Structure formats: structure tokens, C-alpha cells
């Protein structure tokens, strides 16, 4: 079954990419972007049909590899795409 892990920078951590992209948008005339932050989304296909098992595994992966707890937080979704 499918699932996602969404990884975001912690709020207090600087996001240089987001800042640059936000500025670029402003230059393009999108002047009501108050803030923009960039994160990652991992679309994972798992060889299991058990949603709980899937969630358990996605969480474990996120903790172990996909997210860096020092600067990032993560969320796990099971099921169809976000």
C-alpha cells in the first residue's frame, strides 16, 4: 500500500531555500506571500496491506533515515496521495 512521509525544517531553523524562493516569487509579482518554507515529501510504496503496519514502518524509516531530528520534524500519512 501507499504512504507518505512529509519532512519539514523545524520552525526555528533557517530555511535559506525558502527565503530565496519567496523573494523570487515577490519579484514575479506575487506580493502577498508572507512566508514560504520548503520541505520534502517521500511517496513510498510498501508491500503490505495493513495500514497500521504501514504506519509503523513509515514512522520507523522517518526516524531512522528520512528525517534529521536535529533540524527537521516529520509526519506520516498512510493511504492515497496527499
Amino acid at each position, binding site marked *: 500500500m501507499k504512504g507518505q512521509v512529509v519532512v519539514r525544517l523545524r520552525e526555528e531553523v533557517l530555511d*535559506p*531555500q525558502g527565503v*530565496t*524562493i519567496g523573494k*523570487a516569487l515577490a*519579484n*514575479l509579482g506575487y506580493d502577498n506571500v508572507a512566508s514560504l518554507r*520548503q520541505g520534502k515529501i517521500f511517496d513510498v510504496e510498501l508491500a503490505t496491506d495493513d495500514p497500521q503496519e504501514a504506519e509503523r514502518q513509515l514512522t520507523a524509516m522517518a526516524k531512522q533515515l528520512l528525517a534529521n531530528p536535529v533540524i527537521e520534524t516529520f509526519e506520516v500519512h498512510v493511504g492515497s496521495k496527499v
Partner: protein
Amino acid sequence: MRVGVVYFPGSNCEQDAVYACRQVGLEAEYVWHKQSLIEGFGALILAGGFSYGDHLRCGAIACSSPIMPAVERFAADGGLVLGICNGFQILAEMDMIPGTLLANNGLKFRCQDTLMRVERNDSPFTNACEVGQVLRINMAHYEGNYFAEPETLQRLEANGQVVMRFGPAADESGGEFNPNGSIADIAAISNEAGNVMGLMPHPERAMQSALGSTDGRLVFESLRRAIDARDGDSQAFVALEGKPAGV
């Protein structure tokens, strides 16, 4: 006729491109991205580096710089445009060159000398080379893994748009000599008309034997010949309005 070296915030090879032009007797001038006017140039080089920090996608944000509509028109009017490394990425993002540049297959930045085989010498960027000639030129990039979908690739091959491939000999390409996983060992590719070329390795870093290689001179020498051949037939034009050229 002068060459304009276009650079953006985060570009870092503009001085090397200017140096390389001057080494082969081409006049070169810096062109800051905030200009929206391009005037009196025989060719443009989009310099390498990390425009806008490579944020979002390499080359993506540079596309909305004031200079880019002018670059696009310059090319559409037949002007010569060479994109090196990040310049190549910008051209791909602009869709001025087909395909895209993905992360290297090793998922690491990679800097080393490469060997590239010249596929054709009727291009304004390779007319000083022999077909099959192998150039030793340094590369330095994270996203240089050229990718195009099968139909596109087929069309590129059929049109002869592949200008250089990674490979150690006239009759041998790829294998351990493809440093980044580029499809069909592609190192340099042009648009259909041939006047716009993107090249991942840095010929401007191969201009002195004391610094490793002089093979890059062939690329700049080609450019000089191409510009000379168009002598008098000025590519100059005025696009939009803005400040005069110059840094």
C-alpha cells in the same frame, strides 16, 4: 565583436569565462543579470556557478531574471549562446535546450577531469575540433546527469544535436568515463538550430597547460571563428528597455 558573459547572484565562473575569451583574442564583457538590454554582442555565455544558490532547482530562479527575455530573443534571432554548467542548467530550465539535468548518479558533487569526444564539428562551438577528437576538460557539478525522454532523445540523435559525449577515444564512449550517469553519455547538447549549446564540463578551466589542459581553447577558438564568420552581421539589437551594458 564582443562576447557578453552573463552572470547572476551566485554565479561563480564568470571571471573564468571572461579570461578564456580573452585568451583566444575575443573581447569579453560582464553582463549583470539585472540588465534587460543586450547590445552589440557577437555571442553570449551563461556562466557557471550556483545562481540563486541552486535553490528550488538548479537554474530555475535565474529564468525570471530581467536579462533572460533578452537572452531568449538574442537566441531566437540566431545569436550564439553557450551555457556552461549552471548556464546549461539555466538553458534547460528556459527550455532553450531540450531535456533536463538530474543529480549525478553517485548523488554527490563531483569534480574531476573528464574526457569528451567531439561528435560534430559543424557547430559554432566545435568548428576548431576534429570529429572524434577527445578533449580533456574538468567538470564540477552535482546536477549534470543529462536526461531526456526516449522520444526526445531519438529526435536529438536524429537531428545531430548531441555535440559531445563522455568517452576516452574516437570510437569509445561511456563506461567508467561517464562521470555522472548522463543518458547516451551526453556532455554537450545544442538546440535544433545549433546556435545554442549547453555543456556540463568547464572549457574555461582548460586554457593553460600549467593548470592541467589547454583543450578548452578549442571551444573558445571555435566561438571566435564562428563570430568572425558572421563578421559585420551584427547580432546587436535592443530588447526591452534598461541600463546600458556593463557591470
